[in-house]
């Protein structure tokens, strides 16, 4: 089977994941990702036309809690592990100028 994941797609996924890849790596991952898909494709040999799609592996549904407010963390506890804080806020690098 021909490559399922071409170099273009590898570059796009790498961009979305903010990963820098060299040209040889693009080649390499294109091959590897295609191989993985080909391997998984074996599942298509099974006839599943009469099988309902599975959306969750557990045969459970409707686990709810009551709408009641409970305990929360104090502001100090919530921010305890924050690398930077400012007046009760988590401080992060400026998002807007």
């Amino acid at each position, binding site marked *: 089977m021909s490559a399922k994941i071409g170099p273009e797609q590898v570059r796009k996924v790498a961009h*979305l994941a903010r990963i820098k890849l060299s040209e040889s790596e693009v080649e390499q991952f294109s091959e590897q990702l295609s191989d993985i898909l080909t391997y998984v494709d074996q599942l298509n040999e099974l006839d599943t036309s009469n099988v309902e799609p599975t*959306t*969750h592996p*557990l045969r*459970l*549904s*409707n*686990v*709810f*809690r*009551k*709408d*009641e*407010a*409970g*305990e*929360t*963390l*104090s*502001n100090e506890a*919530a*921010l305890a592990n924050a690398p*930077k804080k*400012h*007046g*009760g*806020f*988590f*401080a*992060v*690098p*400026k*998002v*807007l100028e």
Partner: protein
Amino acid sequence: MSPQKSHTPQYRPTVGLEIHVELATASKMFCACTNKFGDPPNTNVCPVCLGMPGVLPVMNRKAYEFAVRVGLALNCNIATYTKWDRKGYYYPDLPKNYQISQYDLPLSSNGYIDLPVDSQVKRVGITRAHLEEDAGKNVHDLPDCTGVDLNRAGVPLLEIVSEPDMNSPQEVMVYARAMRQLVRYLGVSEANMQHGHMRFEPNISLWIFDEAETDGGHYTPIVEVKNLNSFRALEKTVVFEIERQINEWQADSQNYRMDKMSKQNRGWDDVKEITVFQRHKEEAQEYRYFPEPDLLPVEIDEAWLKQIRSQVPELPAARLERFQKEFGLEAKLANLLTSEKSIADYFEQAVRAGASAKRAANMIQSQGLRLANERGTDVGSLGVWPERLAQLCKLADADKVSATATVAIFEAMMESEDSAEKIAQDKNLMQVSDASELESVVQQVLTENTKAVEDYRAGGKKSKKARGFLLGQVMQKSKGQANPKVAGEIIDKKVLG
């Protein structure tokens, strides 16, 4: 066909609207943190909504029921089986780096709402309404950093997506306001705009067509404007975009087309009152949706659905129609009374307690709503309970108090537990309508003012003024307690015979 083709193509705006509504639950969607606006930053948070490792979300039953209630009110199909999905993106206000949402199995879909537009019924399709969790809030006015407040992270958020069925700014506004009214009627959201309970994202494009051509016209590229949090911004955005897209199309009619240019996101600049380009959708982030493994699916059976359906009250449009039919109210007044469920309920309870519909409606319009507005509360919370409003209406209907006096009595009732009648008596506001009681006062006035009596009897220019004078004297003598209508009739009878 005429050989001369028209070169003035027409356009028709095509707008769809996404609305995000925060639900008014006590606690968040997937954890027990308080759902409340305005608390100090990062005080309504816990490991779940902070996105700490190893925690597990648990669904809030009420939030789910609220969402289904809206779906039912919007005539949607309610899915008997739904699941949750993770929508991945990176932003500081999203601590888990994914938002729990519903992707391919939303809890409701394929509905509609009928709207009154220019005395016609405009039907707008509802593509879907699904539940998700709100993100936190970024605060941009701090020095050298952006502040992140996660109190809002995890608040239940209902996303309502319409079909692109709206064709003018006016229709967009009617739809948006109807949605706010609806969620308030349903009691699922306060829909307080200042608190960000409702946010709009319109999708706008123009259908441009030339009646002289047979090609069916074409569309301008869709523009999605993100995160508008007021009706004013929504209206201005839609008006601005229509204008802007016309200009773009006129500048390059061959290329400014949906099939040649990708969808773009724009933002609304509230100061300059323009939309600003943000990004093309082709550069859009890949959300990498996948089923949320930490949450179980939801299945709704008939019994549960029936129970939720029973919580859907009479909806605004139906109530408006009934108020006009049942109570004989004119459209404008009926509209006002049904604008909020609390007002409509208050009115109906007063009528059920014996008030005449018209009197109660007018009293609510001229006094109740004015005072409620002045005091920043709703009419039902002024202290004049519907039963007491009915007392006052009955007094006025029986001519025992004048329309003018009801103003003072209504205000006094807000501060006192006394009955309307007792207050009227204490304040000397009871009106004398009994003809025999008024006769002697009238007689006295007539005797003391023979000139005016003559003028009145003589007819002509001075006549009307003279009658007014006599009536004024009667009112004065009775300390304002005479019923002017009855007193006037007695004067007429005595003078004109």
